[in-house]
């Protein structure tokens, strides 16, 4: 996959455009009267869906770099993570500002009452904390703690999945109703999280190296090991 490296700038641009496109489409639809007769609900659903897709993509970066050996993938992780936060922030604003008009006498009971918000709010706070510390200055300031802090994304992803499972119409646990979205998200994000379990990762990577001649394995192993440590 070496050729991708030289085209990395193109890919970065494609990521920016791809991540902004849903927002542009949303704004155009909103202004041109194409956002259903219940535009706030439609916008809330679209921004939520976009956020969880971007979250999945940002979680895919590290497994792609380890398993597919495309090291540059991790360089897209921060961008994707920041866009996840941006959509989640719009999603939250749509709820608090557009839907409830900042009427906290209505909003507070909702947050106290609804399980999907008990998990959605911490998920958002995690995204906010990670976005706020995603810059070089914060990285330097936090030092070793930065990495520990950013591991919270695993928790954030699980909470966001729970939010989705609780917010659909039906019963996701019993797979009745509109269960396909949380099911799909659960399978994809669950796989991406499981692929990080160190023992599984070592096992899978050694499997990949098996067919190669013994001499080549010895050469290939050290760099593979170091990726493990780095990511």
């Amino acid at each position: 996959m070496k050729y991708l490296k030289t085209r990395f700038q193109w890919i970065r641009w494609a990521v920016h455009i791809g991540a902004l496109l849903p927002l542009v489409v949303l704004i155009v639809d909103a202004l041109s009267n194409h956002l259903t007769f219940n535009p706030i609900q439609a916008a809330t659903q679209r921004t939520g869906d976009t956020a969880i897709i971007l979250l999945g993509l940002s979680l895919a970066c590290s497994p792609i770099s380890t398993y597919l050996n495309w090291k540059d993938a991790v360089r897209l992780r921060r961008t994707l993570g920041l866009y996840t936060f941006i959509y989640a922030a719009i999603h939250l604003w749509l709820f608090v500002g557009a839907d409830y008009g900042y009427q906290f006498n209505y909003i507070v009971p909702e947050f106290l009452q609804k399980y999907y918000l008990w998990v959605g709010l911490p998920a958002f706070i995690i995204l906010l904390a990670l976005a706020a510390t995603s810059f070089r200055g914060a990285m330097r300031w936090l030092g070793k703690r930065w990495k520990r802090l950013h591991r919270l994304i695993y928790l954030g992803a699980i909470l966001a999945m729970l939010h989705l499972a609780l917010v659909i119409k039906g019963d996701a646990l019993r797979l009745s109703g509109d269960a396909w979205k949380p099911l799909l998200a659960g399978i994809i994000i669950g796989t991406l999280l499981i692929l990080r379990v160190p023992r599984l990762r070592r096992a899978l990577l050694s499997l990949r190296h098996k067919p190669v001649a013994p001499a080549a394995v010895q050469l290939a192993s050290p760099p593979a090991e170091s990726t493990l440590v780095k990511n």
Partner: protein
Amino acid sequence: MSTNWKPDKIRSSDITPEAVYLNRRQFMKGAAVFAAGAVLAACAPQIAPQAPTPLPAEVGAMAGQKDELGDPLTVYAAVTGYNNYYEFTQSKEGVAGLAHDFKTRPWTVAVGGLVNKPHTYDIDELIKRFPVQERIYRLRCVEGWSMVIPWRGFPLKQLLAEVEPTNAAKYVRFQTILDPQQMPGQSDPSFPWPYTEGLRMDEAQNDLTLLTTGVYGQDLLPQNGAPIRIVTPWKYGFKSVKAIVKIDLVADQPSTLWPLTAPDEYGFYANVNPNVPHPRWSQSTERRIGDADRRPTLLFNGYADQVASMYAGMDLHANF
């Protein structure tokens, strides 16, 4: 562009043709969605408004009508273009298109069960059987949105009287047609098709319970449940079962689709009640389709005078 834009300032349905008025309101709402402000608002005038589709004459004749609380009818385009009808699709805006060619003739409604005079009615016979009435009802969806809709039909109690329920009859069970050929959503195995709904005998005999055959002055459209449906305006919309082929009088409380699908969320009674929360949507407030702001939800959707006595002494939290 701010979110506290007040719809009443430009509520001008009386002087503006409805389709034009709808577009403008929709635009205002859309813009309110994004407080991105002047930049975005500046782009808006360049987007050409959609050509207004001509409305049926009966619809125009209803312009300016209000419900008894003083709220205007929800625009025709929303009533006929924003429908929860999972038999066709879960996309509310997709229903009208998919239901367009739905065959409502020939059609029969079999009324039976615990009755002395079971009878299978041909739909045209049934529609003409009782004098029809126009009723303007609020519709409150469990998802937290609402409409005001002019229906046409006759009280269910008239039909029930004709078939003579026996003393053993305690509930009425309704069933929607099962026809996956015409209703693609019925191929979705996550729901226990066909749609069934039910009412307690006194609820079924309440004068508000309307066996409905028309909307907005015309025959019911397929997306609104043609050829015949129930409307119970004090209950969440999912109780108002559509495209009915079977009505049975039964002794026990029937199992119905939504409580079967998610028993913790949807109860048999499903009375509109701002004090009984739902795990997802706010039941204390609602958005009237076309409004920018939420409004408080009324107990029994504002029909407490006519229905509250049926539930006297009942725990409405346990019997949600």
